C-alpha cells in the first residue's frame, strides 16, 4: 500500500526540486511550499499507513480497542507543518523585501554579498 505513496512523495520532491532550481524568486517560493508537503508525507508514509482509525482512545477504555494509525509520525508531522509554514512566511517576506531593495526577482542578479567583479585580495599588512 505504501508503495503508491512512495512514488507520490518522489513526484512531489521532483516537482519541488525543479522549482527550487529556478532563477526566479516566486518559483523558488512555490518549490519550498511543495517541499514542505513532500517531506511531511514522507514522514507520514514511513510510519506505515492505516486506514480510517485515528489514534484516539474511547471514553470508557484505557487503551484503544482496535489497531489505530501510528500516532508518532502524526505528532512529528504536526510540528513540521507549522515549522514549514513559518519558514515559508519568513522566506516570503525576505524575498519581498529583497525585491524591494534590489529591484530584481532574478537570483543571478542578486549579487550584493558576492559581487561579480573580483577585487584584489588584501596583500598588504
Amino acid at each position, binding site marked *: *500500500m505504501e508503495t503508491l505513496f512512495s512514488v507520490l512523495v518522489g513526484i512531489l520532491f521532483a516537482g519541488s526540486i525543479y522549482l527550487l532550481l529556478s532563477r526566479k524568486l516566486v518559483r523558488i517560493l512555490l518549490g519550498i511550499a*511543495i517541499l514542505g508537503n513532500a517531506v511531511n508525507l514522507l514522514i507520514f508514509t514511513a510510519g506505515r499507513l492505516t*486506514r480510517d482509525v485515528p489514534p484516539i482512545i474511547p471514553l470508557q477504555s484505557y*487503551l484503544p480497542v482496535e489497531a489505530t494509525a501510528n500516532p*508518532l509520525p502524526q505528532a512529528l508531522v504536526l510540528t513540521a*507543518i507549522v515549522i514549514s509554514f513559518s519558514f515559508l512566511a519568513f522566506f516570503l517576506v525576505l524575498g519581498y523585501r529583497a525585491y524591494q531593495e534590489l529591484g530584481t526577482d532574478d*537570483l543571478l542578479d542578486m549579487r550584493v554579498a558576492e559581487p561579480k567583479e573580483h577585487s584584489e585580495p588584501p596583500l598588504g599588512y
Partner: protein
Amino acid sequence: MPLFGVEATFWALLGPFVAAALSPFLAKTLKHNAAWLLAVIPALAFLQFLSFVPGIAEGQTFKASLEWVPTFNVNFSIYLDGLSVLFALLISGIGTLITLYAGGYLKGHENLGQFLSYLFLFMGAMLGVVVADNVITLFIYWELTSITSFLLIGFDHLRRASRRSAVQALVVTGGGGLALMAGLILAGYQGGSFELSELLNSGDVLRESPYYTAIFILVVLGAFTKSAQFPFHFWLPNAMEAPTPVSAYLHSATMVKAGVYLLMRMHPVLGDTELWMTVLPIFGGITLLVGTILGIRQTDLKLVLAYTTVASLGLLVMLTGTSDPVAIQGAVIYLFAHSLFKGSLFMVVGTVDHESGTRDLNRVGGLFSLMPITGTAAVLSALSMAGLPPLVGFVAKEVLYDGTWHAVNGGLWTGFAVLGNAMMFALAATVAIKPFFGAKVKTPKVAHEGTVLLVAGSITLAVLGLAAGAFIASVGHQLLSPMTSAILGTPFDEELHLFPTYLSPALYLSLATVALGIIIFMYMDKLRVIVADALRTIGWGPDKGFDQVLEVIIRFATTLTQTVQTGSMVTYMRATFTVIALVLFVPMILTGNWPKLQGIGSFYAYEWFIAAIAVIGVYAVLTARYRVTAIVLLGIQGFAVALIYLLFGAPDLAFTQFMVETLSVVILALVMTRLNLKPTDARSSRGKAFDISLSVLCGAGISMLLMSIIQLPFDPTLSEFFTQYSRTIAHGRNIVNVILVDFRGFDTIGEISVVMVTGLAVLALIRVRPKSNGNSNSEKNR
C-alpha cells in the same frame, strides 16, 4: 596553596598574569611610577625560584602537579631542575629590571598600562615554558609566548613596518610551534609518558624508535623557528620595530632562548645521535656566521645587537649540537653571560636613543662624559660580549673553545666559533666605542644621563656580569653546573676558574679571536660597504621570501574561493542537489540494495483519485504561465495531501494542513501580486533539460529510499509506548495531542519559539528600513 615550598611556585607562575591585570589600572593612577610597584611581583617570583638553588646544587629536582584534563593525561605539572631554575631566574630577574626600564622608557606614553600588561603576559607565558613538566602544558605556554610577543612587537601598530614584523614573528614562531606540538605528542606516545621528567629517562627508547627522525625534525623545527636559526632568522631583526624594552627582554633572555631551552631540555632524549650532532652544529654554525656578517652591515645600533643575538643563538645551538659535556658547559655559561650582557646592551642602546634622539652609530659619539653610568654599563657589557677578562663572557669563551676543540668534528666547529666570536668582538667594540668615545657628534636631542628607571637595569646587569666573572667558581657550582647536568642527564661539576690555570689550546684560540677581532674592527667601515654590496648583488633573502610565500598563499586562497564560490545561486543549488542525488544512489549502486518491486496493493478508487489530483496539482504549478495561476494551483496538491491525512487516520493533521494551505495561498497571493514580477521562467532549454533530469533523479532516489525503508520490518516500540501510557499516566485520549503537549512538550516549546522568532523577524523585515528608502541610485547599488 601554601605560600612556601614547591607548591608556591604556582603562585609565582600566576603572579605575572595578576600583574598583567593590574597594570592598566595602576598605570592610570600612578603613571610611570607604577613600574616600581609592579616590579615587586616578578621580584617575588625571582626569590621563589632562588629558594630552589641550594637544593638543586646538591642534585635535587622538584615536582608539583595539578590535575587539568585527567582523561587525556594532561596535567598542569611543573618540573624544576638546574635547567629550568636558571632559566626561570633569568626570566623573572631580568623581567624585574625590564619592568622598571619600561616605566622609564615609555614615561608619559598613553598606552603604558597596556604595554606593561602585554609584558607581564609574556613573562607569565615564558616562565610557564621553562618550568612546564607536561608536554601539553609546555606547548600551550609556548604558543602563548608567540601570541604575546605578537602583541608586544606590534605594540606600535599604527606603523606598517610594526604590523608586518608582528605578523611575521607570529607566523614563523607560531607555525614552528605547531610542528613542535606534533613532535612532542609523538615523543610522548613513543616514550610512554607526557611528563618531561619521566620522558627524560626514556632516551634510549626514543633514540631507537622508528619515529626518531620524525620527532627530531618536528622538535628541531619548533626550536629553530623560535630561536631564529638560519633560514628562519629574519623575523628577529624585524622584531626590532618593537619598543626597546621588548627587544631587551625578548631577545636577551627569553623568547628567542626558548628554542635553545627546548633543545637543551630534549638533549637527554634526542641528543647524542649522528643526526643531532650533524644538523644542529651545521645550522647553528651557519646562523652564527650569517648573523655576525649581517650585523657588520648595520648602522642602527639596535639592529647590530639584533644580528649579534641571532649569531649568539647560532653559537648556542651549535654547542648544544656537539653533545660534548664541556661544550655544553660552555653553552650554559655563554647563555648566562649573553642574557646579562645582551639585556644590558639593549637597554643601553634604548637609553641612548631615548636621551640623544638617535641610535644610528654614525650620528652619535663622545657621549661618555654626558652619560657616565650608561657608558660604564655599555663598556662592561661589551667586554663580556667580546669575551675579555675579567667578565663572565671570557670564561664562557674559554670553556666553549675547550669543548669544541675536543668534540667530534671539533676542528670545523672550532673554526666557526673563532670566526664568529672574532666578528662578535668587533661588533661589541663598535657598540661600546662608537657612541661613547671619540669626537662629540651633534645629536638630535641634547644628550644627558637617563632617569633612575632607565639606567638601573643596564648597570645592574653589567655589574652582575662582572661579579659573576669574579665569583665564577661558586656561580658555576650553584647555578651553571646543575644546569649542565640537567642538559646532559648525568651529573657534571667541574670547577670553573676566571683565569686559565694552564696554557690550554682554548687560551691560544682566545688570543687568535681577539687579534682577528681587532683587525675586523679596524676595517669595519670597509667591510660594511663590502657586505652591503654583496647583499645588494644577491638581492633576495628569506625576508623577501616570506612576503612572496604569503602572497602566493593569499592569491591561491582568493582564486580557490572565487572558483568555488561563483556567487551564482543557481550553481549552488545545482551542486547541492547533485550531491543529494549522489548520496541517494551511490550506496544503492555499491551495495546492490535496491528496493524490491512489489505490487501497489489494493486501493479504493477514491484513493487513486486523490493521489492523481496531487500529481496534477504539482504539474499544474510547474507549467503555469502566470504567477497568480501558479499560486492558486499550489493549493491543489496541498489539499490533496490534507485529504490523504484525513483518509489514513490523521484528522488533526488534515485540519492543520487545510488551515496552513489556505493561509499560504492567501498570503502568497497577497504579497506576490504586489510585486511586479516577470512571470516567465528564464531558463535556457539546455538548463531546463539538466534541471529536469536532476530533479527527476532526486525524486526517484527519494522514492526508492522510502520504499527500502518501508520494506524493512517495522519497529513499533515507541508508538506502543505512547499508546499504552497516553491515558494511564498522561490522562489524555487523543494520543497525538498527548505526545505533543506532554511526552514531547519541549519539542513543542521549541516549535512555538520558532514561530515566535519568525514572527518577530518578519515584523523586523517589514518595519526596519534603510533611511532613504531605496530611491537614490547609490542606495540601490549598495
